[in-house]
């Protein structure tokens, strides 16, 4: 079968399974999963960047951008339809990233990380100053609708939307990562000089990944803003971005689904340790992080997503050593 | 003097060296010859301790090297010139040569430096240049000089002639042959013996990590 169709088919199947799961789990878990999807989307964008050797410590900016733009639209224009809001948030995140990208796309490594962080912190600083949109306290986002229907109070409706979005995003990313450009991006992580000497522009490869990540972050921001019913400049604070990085690294860049799982697990670990050990949850989170890094250094996703195999050459024998 | 017995080295999934054995008598010049990827570098790294043995032993004058920490091996008189040259880019040529003498006890840095300059006078004009500015071949020279400062018993030269212009290669083999002495042994890895046929006492061949045949050059 056409691999692209197959990927989307799998995604649809996965979405159905998770929607079914949503029918039986308790409400709090439904909400946690919804929020995990929001984070997971941002982390998925980070995975795309990581595949190209870029680590952004400022995804909060695009996350925040998506959440603010869609949230303000809901408040000011009274638009509460999720399809509209999600599209607007996604475009907003991507657009901000596109505006920023000429500035950041020529950086690598720690400098890239810190520059993106600095930009998100400038946004944070500016947002805390604008009293008209709540300053540092932010503002509340009205309840969402879908095609004119109010989404049920149980949170199931929103969860279902989140699952569909997650499946769609994962499928798109899978197809993109496996594409020619995706391969070139991974090659750029390994050796930029080589890529340039092959005639490709590392700059434009980076820019594309960056805009994709921005769009996904905007999507995640919108979803979470709506789910939480509240957005504030903290969305753009560096610790928020740090949390996304945390989730992305735990997920690893082999898989496009792992990030959603690690987002959920991180949320649960934090929530339970915060409740049962309110005075030492940071330590537990730290230990959890260390354990994952030590035992699954290439991310949780490496457990099931193996690097793509070259089926055509399987038959060729390895050198007999 | 140096005895390698049935060593095995695994790099990742690959058995880079398999049951390899070799004897290096005192005062001999040995060529370790093999094609690309045969395992020459790996054998040298195993002697220096940079590659972990998964079996077998390396003994120097009866002392099992496995019991000696890596950073204590140079003090046994082991001088190593890595394939990648491995100069310290921010240090000058002279500092690069002196580096081993700084960390080893009871070694006269000045005297060693003089010795190296005597053997390779062409290093002197470069003495104050930072290593990162040198061309590939120049770096080879410096790396050889550095190996000489501590290599009083055994020199391990990994591909000393590779990437070296013929004039310089000739000069290098002169230098190496001038080192010949009762107490100093040299192992040179190479993929060919053109520059060094005259130098070598023995050639050990290695193929896919294993011994092929040994014999006089």
């Amino acid at each position, binding site marked *: 079968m056409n691999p692209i169709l197959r990927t989307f088919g799998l995604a649809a199947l996965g979405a159905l399974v998770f929607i079914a799961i949503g029918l039986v789990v308790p409400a709090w878990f439904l*909400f*946690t999963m919804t*929020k995990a999807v929001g984070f997971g989307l941002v982390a998925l964008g980070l995975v795309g960047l990581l595949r190209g050797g870029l680590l952004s410590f400022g995804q909060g900016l695009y996350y925040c951008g998506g959440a603010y733009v869609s949230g303000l639209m809901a408040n000011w224009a009274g638009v509460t339809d999720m399809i509209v809001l999600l599209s607007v948030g996604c475009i907003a995140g991507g657009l901000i990233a596109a505006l920023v990208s000429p500035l950041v796309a020529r950086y690598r490594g720690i400098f890239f990380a810190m520059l993106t962080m600095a930009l998100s912190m400038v946004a944070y*600083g500016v947002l*805390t100053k604008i009293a008209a949109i709540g300053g*540092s306290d932010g503002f*509340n986002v009205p309840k969402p609708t879908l095609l004119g229907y109010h989404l049920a109070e149980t949170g199931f409706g929103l969860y279902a939307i989140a699952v569909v979005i997650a499946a769609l995003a994962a499928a798109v990313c899978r197809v993109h990562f496996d594409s020619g450009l995706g391969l070139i991006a991974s090659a750029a992580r390994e050796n930029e000089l080589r890529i340039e000497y092959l005639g490709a522009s590392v700059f434009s490869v980076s820019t594309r990944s960056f805009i994709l990540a921005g769009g996904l972050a905007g999507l995640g921001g919108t979803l979470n803003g709506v789910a939480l019913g509240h957005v504030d400049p903290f*969305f753009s604070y560096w610790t*928020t971005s740090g949390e996304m990085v945390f989730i992305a690294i735990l997920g690893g860049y082999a898989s496009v689904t792992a990030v959603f799982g690690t987002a959920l697990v991180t949320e649960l670990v934090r929530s339970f340790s915060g*409740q049962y050990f309110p005075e030492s949850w940071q330590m537990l989170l730290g230990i959890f992080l260390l354990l994952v890094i030590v035992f699954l250094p290439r991310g949780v996703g490496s457990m099931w997503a193996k690097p793509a195999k070259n089926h055509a050459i399987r038959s060729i024998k390895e050198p007999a050593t | 003097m140096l005895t390698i017995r049935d060593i095995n080295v695994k790099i990742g999934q690959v058995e880079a060296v398999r049951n390899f054995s070799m004897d290096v008598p005192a005062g001999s010049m040995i060529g370790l010859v093999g094609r690309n990827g045969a395992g020459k570098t790996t054998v040298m790294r195993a002697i220096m301790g940079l590659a972990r043995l998964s079996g077998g032993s390396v003994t120097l004058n009866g002392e099992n090297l496995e019991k000696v920490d890596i950073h204590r091996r140079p003090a046994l008189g082991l001088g190593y010139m890595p394939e990648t040259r491995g100069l310290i880019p921010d240090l000058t040529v002279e500092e690069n040569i002196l580096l081993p003498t700084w960390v080893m006890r009871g070694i006269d840095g000045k005297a060693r430096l003089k010795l190296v300059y005597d053997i390779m006078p062409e290093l002197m004009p470069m003495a104050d240049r930072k290593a990162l500015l040198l061309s590939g071949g120049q770096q080879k020279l410096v790396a050889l000089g550095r190996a000489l400062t501590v290599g009083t018993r055994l020199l391990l030269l990994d591909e000393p002639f590779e990437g070296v212009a013929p004039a310089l290669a000739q000069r290098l083999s002169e230098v190496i042959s001038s080192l010949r002495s009762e107490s100093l042994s040299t192992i040179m890895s190479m993929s060919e013996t053109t520059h060094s046929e005259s130098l070598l006492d023995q050639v050990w061949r290695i193929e896919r990590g294993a011994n092929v045949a040994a014999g006089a050059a």
Partner: protein
Amino acid sequence: AAKDTFKVGIVTFLSGQAAQSFGVPAANGAKLLVKKLNAGEVPAPYNTPGMGGMQIEAVLIDEAGGATVQVQEYRNLVQREKVDVVIGYVGSGDCLAVAPVAEELKTFTILYDCGTPRIFEDADYQYVFRTAATATQDNVGLVRYLKALGVDIKTYAGIHQDYAWGHDSWVDFKAAMGRIYPEATVAAELFPAFGAGQYGTEISALMQRRADVIHSSLWGGDLQSFILQGLPRGLFRQAQVALSTADHVLPPLGNNMPEGVIIGARGSYGYMAPESALNTWWDAAYREAYDNVVPVQGPYRMAQALLGLKSAVEKAMKENGGVKPSSEQLSAAMTGLSWESPAGLIEMTNGKGHQAIQSIGFGRTQKDKDGNIVLGDILHFDARCVNPPADKKSIEWIEAGFPGADCD
């Protein structure tokens, strides 16, 4: 039904900057009061065990992590832990974010501390209540206090943390100054980052601009650092410093506190608490439990929330025949309720009966005869003197010249 337990989620800062000054003391106060309430050891009218006979079970949650985390934790408290009510939130952002969720989940919720007037001025809630006055009274009261002391002000300056709390405090203060000291002008306004820790430059700037009064809403570690750094540089000699929420730094700083500094506590708390049997008991119980440390605003505010809850629960049970009240019944009982707290009478008069007003006290540090720093010049302002009437938004009320204020 008397065998039931009553599960209360308590949310306050247990880590981060606000833990030491507000969160942990409040949590300590909650633990203590819950224990005493369960044992029925609190003086009348609270001397019945637990809440309407039900033993109180407290679930303590850390407020750190921002509003998003708090929304999620709130849901977990309600949906997973199945708490009956939630009491919590110091951060204004957390209150704003949690309130609509409480409404959605139809869970009776008390905001015990946060200061922003926006919550009930911008929206109506059925299930959400705030048992403490807003920050408006802190700053209106402070200006009134300056006036009452007869401080002469031609210029004044402000230094506030750069987030909503700081900005709102400064806006209220400036507005109140405009009414009460119409001639005075602003000499400087500084907004150091939250948790900046280093105030050398700010202190230089304040001293260079030479204001008569320096107003600040700094709190916790930031405030302590500001005081420690300003003291040797003569800041507190040069200007009259007025701190709107500083009572909690008095116990740790002790005699290192400069003289002549005006201190507010956001209510009639601690050193400024009114004399009553309840307060005497509370002060003694807290000191006994926690190394003789004076309870400051954190524990007081927690206590007034818990006691308000107890009043509401018992009122509701009186009406529903003694079963565990639903959130709706609790809301109905709490609306417009008033009750005695260690800090005096709490009255839910504003925000359609969801927002409390209370009296507030101020004092000024001075040396006693042994050379110890104590609080003198203590004055109280009546709740209706420093809070807007039920139908007015705070800032409009201030700007209109406090119509309807009742200051005797």
